[in-house]
């Protein structure tokens, strides 16, 4: 059994690694690139100097600081390889030298560091200078050394320079280590660990948001994890309202499940009605204009007891050329307590009401691109399926009565490059606050009086105060917010 576990572990480590030799020639010229492959330095840096090991092309090499020592103590410098899985065969080869003959003592040693970070056996020693003598010839000549690999297991190699007196530096280049690369840059360059993957989807259980679901690994959160944002409506379209943007205030938090290639498998929308400052029996729906109904396998969670919408077998709305999901047909159906105001949660002196959170779960027929998850939320005005209220940069669905456009105050540009659902002065019927829930104005209070930077944002084409919805100093009149 132990042998089986050992074999599996070896296979898993190997699957995260590269067979062959681990090499480093420093020709990228930067420690940062070496770090990426889990090489590490202490009093060593990567430079291009005339005293390198490859003077013909002066390619970069690693050099130590000047190994002068001080007050009877040696100077040291260290270079660490990544972790390598050794099998007892092959060699470690490298070029090395000193930058000059200056110094009283200069040595280079190499050690193994085990997978717990402990110093292991010494595998190499070279004396450049001993009491000003050069026992192995001129130390500025390039030496190519070979260390036979006689050990097995996962180790990193540590080159260790020791020096005293003078100002020469150690130089090393063109390192090649026979073995399997076994460091994990994601995990602080620790040895690659066995990677249990219960659902065999290529994502380690420890990093898998769905460790027992082979179809999914990761999530995309809109707007961010455990956070809602808001769509706020004026519901009188095509007639202008009072711009308090509280006729319907809808919060939304979406979680898109992604496969191991980043494609979307499903999405869960949590939709919460926070305010209803008008009496219309509005429905709420989501259009996905980049998808068609057949892209969707199933929809669950809709609240549609009013029966004025017609659904396909998969839960999308019938008769649409894009994928449309009804969230609720009438907001009244999701209210759990009304409060005692004339409206729902827009009058500060009234007892607040409460509503259910509606959870819509959409499963796609096949993995979809994240860029196709366009979210177009819209009101269905007063239960009239032919009357929709969208954000300005979206158009109507196939169920909308196009003859209503450009009536009342509407000045939509259905066939042109301009906005839809705006009046002739480019004022919208809906706004979207992307970061957090919207602190909406109290009943019949214009948004420009409550959110004090809204006007500058709109009048400057969005250049000033793009964060107008945040609670920052000078941004709000809190007495005018619910």
């Amino acid at each position, binding site marked *: 059994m132990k042998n089986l576990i050992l074999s599996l572990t070896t296979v898993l480590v190997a699957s995260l690694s590269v067979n062959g030799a681990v090499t480093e020639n420093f020709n990228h010229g930067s420690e940062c690139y070496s770090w990426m492959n889990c090489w590490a330095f202490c009093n060593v840096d990567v430079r291009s100097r005339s005293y390198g090991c490859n003077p013909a092309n002066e390619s970069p090499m690693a050099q130590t600081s000047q190994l002068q020592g001080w007050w009877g103590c040696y100077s040291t410098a260290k270079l660490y390889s990544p972790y390598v899985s050794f099998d007892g065969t092959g060699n470690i080869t490298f070029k090395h030298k000193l930058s000059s003959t200056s110094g009283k003592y200069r040595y280079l040693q190499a050690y193994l560091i085990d997978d717990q970070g402990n110093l292991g056996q010494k595998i190499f020693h070279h004396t450049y200078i001993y009491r000003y003598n050069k026992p192995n010839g001129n130390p500025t000549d390039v030496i190519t050394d070979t260390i036979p690999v006689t050990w097995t297991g996962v180790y990193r190699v540590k080159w260790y320079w020791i020096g005293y007196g003078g100002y020469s530096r150690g130089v090393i280049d063109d390192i090649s280590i026979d073995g399997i690369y076994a460091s994990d840059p*994601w995990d602080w360059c620790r040895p690659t660990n066995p990677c249990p993957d219960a659902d065999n989807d290529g994502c380690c259980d420890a990093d898998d948001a769905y460790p027992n679901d082979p179809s999914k*690994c990761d999530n995309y959160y*809109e707007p961010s994890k455990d956070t809602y944002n808001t769509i706020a409506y004026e519901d009188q379209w095509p007639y202008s309202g009072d*711009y308090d943007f509280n006729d319907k205030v809808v919060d939304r938090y979406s979680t898109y499940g992604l496969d191991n290639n980043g494609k979307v498998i499903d999405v869960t929308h949590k939709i919460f009605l926070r305010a209803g400052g008008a009496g219309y029996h509005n429905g709420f729906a989501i259009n996905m204009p980049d998808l068609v109904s057949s892209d969707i396998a199933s929809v669950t969670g809709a609240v549609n007891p009013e029966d004025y919408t017609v659904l396909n077998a998969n839960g999308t709305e019938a008769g649409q050329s894009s994928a449309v999901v009804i969230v609720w047909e009438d907001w009244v159906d999701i209210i759990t307590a009304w409060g005692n105001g004339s409206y729902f949660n827009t009058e500060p002196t009234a007892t607040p009401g409460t509503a259910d959170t509606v959870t819509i779960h959409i499963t796609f027929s096949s993995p979809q691109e994240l860029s196709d998850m366009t979210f177009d939320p819209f009101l269905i005005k007063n239960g009239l399926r032919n009357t929709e209220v969208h954000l300005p940069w979206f158009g109507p669905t196939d169920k909308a009565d196009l003859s209503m456009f450009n009536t009342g105050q509407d000045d939509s540009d259905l066939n042109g490059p301009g906005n839809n659902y705006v009046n002739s002065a480019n004022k919208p019927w809906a706004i*979207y606050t992307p970061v957090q829930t919207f602190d909406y104005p109290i009943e019949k209070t214009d948004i420009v*009086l409550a959110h004090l930077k809204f006007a500058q944002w709109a*009048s400057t084409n*969005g250049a000033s105060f793009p964060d107008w919805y945040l609670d920052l100093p000078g941004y709000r009149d809190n007495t005018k917010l619910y």
Partner: protein
Amino acid sequence: MKKLMFLGAMLVLALSSCQKDKDQVKSKNSVNAVSTADLVVPKDFDWKTTRLTTLRIEASDAMFTGKRPIVIKTENDRLILSRHVGMNEDVDIQFELPIAYKQIKVEYGAITKLVDVNNGMASFDFVPVANEERIMDDSENPQPEVELIKVDEE
């Protein structure tokens, strides 16, 4: 004729002055608007508060070939997206980002970077930035055989 040209020039100046004043009034009205109806909104303003943003992940020649999660967060550490990627593949990740955000935080395990977002584009590579923490120190472990090579007394 000269008088006529002078009068014409004065008229143009006077009209352009009036136009400037009118614009200033408009601008003032927009900033201090008491109602949305008063607002002067550019005809081409799209009212968008988010933008489809592309994070381009640049492939490296890293020796590690496994897939690990890359994490995208807002500047204030709110998690937007996690996705498994390999260090050797070019990947574009698209997501909606508030226009107000000028930077995102991108984390690949131990490699963390604050990345600028310009016109809906951002890029990330796996090369760590200079960081003292990456300089190894095994001083807690047994030290090499320095004591065997004594420094001679001068």
